[in-house]
């Protein structure tokens, strides 16, 4: 079977459980099992070839640019691990079927399990380190789901988060390390990387890469000081613990160290980091394990200890040690998985995992007892069981590993570790199964059904078989696997029980003896242990996490506290500083233009402007006054435009001005009329400083600009030249607006239209909310003069509105050739209508308003768009203008340009937008009591004149 299929099968199969669970738990389990079985068979098909030393490969391009490709390869090491993952996985699936209770969502469980399995298989088969990283992180994620499987258990959630945090951290470090490795070698393919030992070890980046990669391995394989997450992961259902936390995931780190052993090992850095860490972990784990009363905790720490052992072996960097490591990986997988499952059985039957509440189960659960007996003795390293063999070889290797020239420290500590593991293994057996039967078990224990004890039993059988005839059972596998690790000549070793009388023999005898002594004096030791004050890993981790999260929260909320004033000052300062820095980093332009003389008129304007501006700041708390002053500033600005040869701007500015003021007045009617004094003097000083800096910066920039010249001729020369012949207009500004840059104007009128829509929508939603109701019911302002619609105003409007409209038409028509145009005309017309609104009131005027402003806006957009599209039919681009001169007696010759049609669109949009905005705003004022007045004016004495008197 193709390697990619082997890796993909579990992922594809992950869909099955969800579907199969409907047809029963057993069916679901079988479906899942069959997936794994298929993958396993697919793997074993390759076994003979691999045993022959061939390397199976599969390659598929994914992201060639990154060098991330779907490359798999299968060699001895891969075969060993894949076999373990799939084989034990199969047993776990069967076991879980019986372990999980009815109300556990089994479908989910198997889905997660298969995802995890696929990820693990992916890791061990990857030929591309980047892809391996993907699978690596996937194992973290899927184990997060598996550990948190029992969502209702807080320790489940916390354990999951802790595992994810620690292994995730390692994973990210691993990414860094792998990237460096890939960069040293120039390829992310393992097969290539493995060829470049010298290149890698010579590189200055070797150490950082090594450290980062080892961080990944150590966290994953729970090496000291990252071992603490593993016991907490035990909150997971036992099948998960057995699978992830003893047999497979925690071995991923070991796998990677073994995988990269040929290129990374052999250096002092490697030895001291890896071997030392392993040694410490081994001893520490063993010691703690002895004092754990929770079966799973005990097993967890023993796992830590054994992982340390294997790490240490890999750390030695000698081929022999590597072989031992491989061999022990196999052995540990067998007995530890068996033990976990048995622990699960005990828990399942007695409803407790507390050793202190157990004991004497021998008679009640003989089968389980036998299994635990076998596996436990193997773990203790007693002859005839596979644990013994690899332990002997380990001790043997330890004697060959001088630490900084010291020849006894490693063997001594190794023996100590072995000694403790003897102790806790025996304790596990004795305190749980031996001794008198008790009558206070939480539940009535008895052996489980076949389905549940068969998987561990099978493993126990393996333990014995390997223990008795290792060479026959696993000889070839160990050979090929360690061949793959060493990547060269295998050293001399022999897998047999009796190696004759050697140091290792004495060391293990010492270990067993010592272990028994320790066990004998467990009670006092345990008391001492409990009294001793030890750093509690979880507490530390939680404290750390709490602090970090708290700090993050404090920083985030402190920084983004919603203070617009601060945001704005940061913005302003950033701009000023960056701008100045940029300016002073370059060379300022030469002031080539000669300065214009200052006439009296501009001087007056300047003085007025400065005074008005200053007053505006000084009196900004009086909102009406500051509004008046703003109006004055606007007036001066528009006069300034007129003075500086920009009549169109003057017209636009002034008419926009008045509409803005009306808007603000309408709003101010509801807003407070005064701004309270809130900022401290210091604050005002700070703001003032920022303001002055900004003013200086902008003023300076303006001056530099005004005194310097264009570097190249401005494109506007073209506009001046082509305005008449090309655009058919003599008012170049207008021609630019409706023709050269008509697209800007198109966007601009749409901005206006949107503004009106937004205002309308917002008014609707505010008036529709409780606020609207409150507004309607608000008390009438007692300080309100009578005479809503004064007679004089109404009458004057009757004359002035038509005149204003006429001015609008005039301004519009001449716009193309003289100052004016659709935009200004639109504003003038809008102002005229506003005049009517102010005179006779909203209701009366709106009642006579024939076309809804929405429609006018839309028509404006249409007019503009369709004018533009019209040019398509002439085979020209959007907005291509055309014009001609026409004779209609007696009107004389006049010009018509498509640009004018566009300008009509502008006109409509402006009228519609301005009016819709004002209309929406004036609706805020409506009170519940208001009755729409039937008359244009409140006072009209002619109403009571007889009709004929009026018409006569």
């Amino acid at each position, binding site marked *: 079977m193709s390697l990619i299929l082997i890796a993909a099968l579990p992922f594809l199969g992950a869909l099955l459980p969800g579907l199969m669970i409907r047809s029963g738990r057993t069916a679901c389990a079988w479906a899942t099992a069959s997936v794994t079985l298929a993958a396993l068979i697919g793997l074993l098909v390759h076994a003979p070839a691999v045993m022959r030393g061939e390397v199976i490969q599969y390659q598929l391009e994914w992201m060639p640019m990154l060098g991330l490709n779907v490359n798999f390869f299968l060699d001895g090491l891969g075969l060993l691990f894949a076999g373990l993952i799939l084989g034990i996985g199969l047993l776990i699936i069967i076991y879980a079927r019986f372990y999980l209770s009815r109300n556990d969502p089994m479908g989910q469980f198997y889905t997660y399990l298969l995802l995890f399995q696929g990820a693990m298989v992916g890791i061990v088969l990857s030929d591309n380190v980047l892809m391996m990283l993907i699978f690596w992180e996937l194992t973290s994620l899927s184990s997060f789901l598996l550990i948190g499987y029992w969502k209702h258990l807080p320790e489940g959630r916390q354990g999951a988060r802790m595992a994810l945090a620690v292994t995730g951290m390692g994973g990210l470090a691993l990414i860094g390390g792998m990237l460096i490795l890939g960069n040293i070698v120039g390829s992310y393919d393992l097969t290539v990387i493995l060829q470049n030992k010298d290149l890698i070890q010579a590189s200055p980046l070797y150490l950082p890469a090594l450290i980062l990669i080892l961080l990944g391995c150590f966290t994953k394989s729970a090496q000291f000081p990252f071992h603490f997450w593993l016991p907490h992961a035990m909150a997971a259902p036992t099948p998960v613990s057995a699978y992830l936390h003893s047999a497979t995931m925690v071995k991923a780190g070991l796998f990677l160290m073994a995988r990269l052993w040929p290129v990374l090992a052999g250096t002092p850095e490697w030895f001291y980091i890896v071997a030392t860490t392993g040694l410490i972990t081994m001893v520490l784990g063993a010691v703690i394990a002895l004092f754990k009363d929770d079966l799973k905790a005990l097993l967890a720490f023993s796992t830590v200890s054994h992982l340390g052992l294997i790490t240490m072996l890999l750390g030695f960097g000698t081929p022999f040690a590597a072989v031992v490591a491989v061999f022990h990986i196999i052995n540990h997988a067998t007995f530890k998985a068996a033990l976990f499952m048995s622990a699960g059985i005990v828990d399942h039957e007695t409803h407790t995992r507390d050793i202190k509440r157990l004991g004497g189960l021998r008679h009640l659960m003989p089968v389980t007892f036998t299994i635990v007996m076998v596996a436990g003795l193997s773990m203790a390293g007693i002859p005839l069981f596979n644990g013994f063999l690899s332990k002997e070889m380990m001790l043997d290797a330890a004697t060959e590993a001088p630490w900084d020239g010291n020849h006894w420290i490693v063997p001594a500590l190794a023996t100590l570790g072995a000694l403790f593991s003897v102790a806790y293994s025996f304790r596990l057996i004795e305190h749980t199964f031996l001794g008198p039967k008790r009558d206070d078990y939480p539940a009535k224990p008895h052996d489980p059904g076949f389905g549940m004890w068969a998987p561990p039993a099978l493993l126990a059988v393996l333990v014995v078989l390997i223990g008795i005839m290792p060479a026959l059972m696993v000889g070839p596998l160990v050979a090929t696997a360690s061949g793959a690790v060493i990547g060269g000549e295998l050293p001399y070793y022999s897998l047999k029980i009796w190696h004759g009388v050697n140091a290792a023999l004495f060391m293990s005898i010492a270990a067993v003896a010592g272990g028994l002594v320790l066990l004998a004096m467990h009670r006092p030791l345990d008391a001492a242990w409990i009294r001793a004050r030890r750093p509690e890993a979880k507490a530390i981790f939680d404290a750390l996490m709490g602090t970090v999260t708290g700090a993050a929260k404090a920083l985030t909320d402190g920084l983004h506290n919603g203070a617009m004033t601060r945001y704005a000052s940061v913005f302003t300062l950033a701009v000023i500083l960056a701008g100045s820095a940029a300016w002073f980093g370059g060379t300022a332009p030469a002031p080539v233009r000669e300065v214009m003389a200052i006439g*009296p008129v501009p001087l*007056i304007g300047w003085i*007025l402007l400065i005074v008005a501006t200053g*007053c505006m700041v000084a009196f900004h708390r009086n909102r009406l006054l500051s509004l008046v002053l703003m109006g004055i500033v606007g007036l001066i600005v528009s006069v300034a435009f007129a*003075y500086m040869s920009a*009549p169109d701007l003057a017209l636009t500015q002034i008419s926009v001005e*008045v509409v803005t003021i009306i808007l603000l007045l309408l709003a101010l009617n509801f807003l407070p009329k005064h701004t309270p004094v809130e900022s401290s003097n210091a604050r005002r000083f700070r703001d003032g400083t920022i303001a002055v800096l900004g003013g200086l910066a902008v003023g300076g920039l303006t001056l530099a600009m005004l005194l310097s010249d264009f570097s190249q001729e401005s494109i506007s020369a073209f506009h001046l030249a082509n305005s008449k012949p090309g655009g058919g207009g003599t008012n170049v500004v207008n021609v630019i607006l409706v023709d050269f840059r008509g697209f800007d104007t198109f966007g601009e009128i749409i901005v206006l239209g949107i503004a009106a829509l937004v205002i309308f929508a917002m008014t609707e939603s505010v008036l529709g909310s409780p606020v609207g109701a409150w507004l309607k019911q608000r008390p009438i302002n007692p300080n309100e003069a009578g005479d809503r619609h004064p007679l004089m105003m109404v009458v004057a409007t009757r004359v002035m509105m038509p005149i204003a409209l006429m001015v609008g038409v005039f301004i519009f028509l001449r716009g193309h050739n003289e100052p004016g145009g659709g935009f200004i005309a639109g504003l003038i017309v809008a*102002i005229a209508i506003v*005049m009517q609104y102010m005179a006779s009131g909203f209701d009366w005027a709106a009642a006579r308003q024939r076309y809804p402003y929405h429609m006018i806006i839309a028509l404006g957009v249409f007019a503009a768009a369709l004018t533009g599209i019209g040019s398509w039919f002439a085979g020209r681009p959007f907005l291509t203008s055309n014009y001609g001169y026409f004779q209609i007696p007696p009107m004389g010759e006049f010009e018509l340009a498509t640009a004018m049609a566009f300008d009509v669109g502008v006109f409509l949009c402006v009228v519609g937008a301005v009016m819709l905005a004002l209309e929406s705003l004036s609706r805020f004022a409506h009170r519940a009591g208001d009755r729409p007045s039937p008359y244009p004016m409140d006072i009209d004495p002619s109403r009571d004149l007889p009709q004929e008197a009026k018409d006569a």
Partner: protein
Amino acid sequence: MILSYALIFTTGCFALALLMNLWRVVSAPGVPDRILALDTMVINFIAILVLYGIIEGTAVYFEASILIAMVGFISTVAYARFMLRGNIIE
């Protein structure tokens, strides 16, 4: 000759007037006085603009003037209505 002196004189007058108006806008005791000053200011601005038209001998400032007149009227009415009724469109 005479004309140019006259122009300078008149411009000066209106400039002074404008400053008085601004002073009034800021210092007036009541809001109506402010509005009044603003209205006067607008009218004086028109005068200045027309004067400038004479000085420069151009008529392009007409549109600006007429528009300023219109706008001045509207805003004065708006301010006054705001004073009287709070709500300027009702």
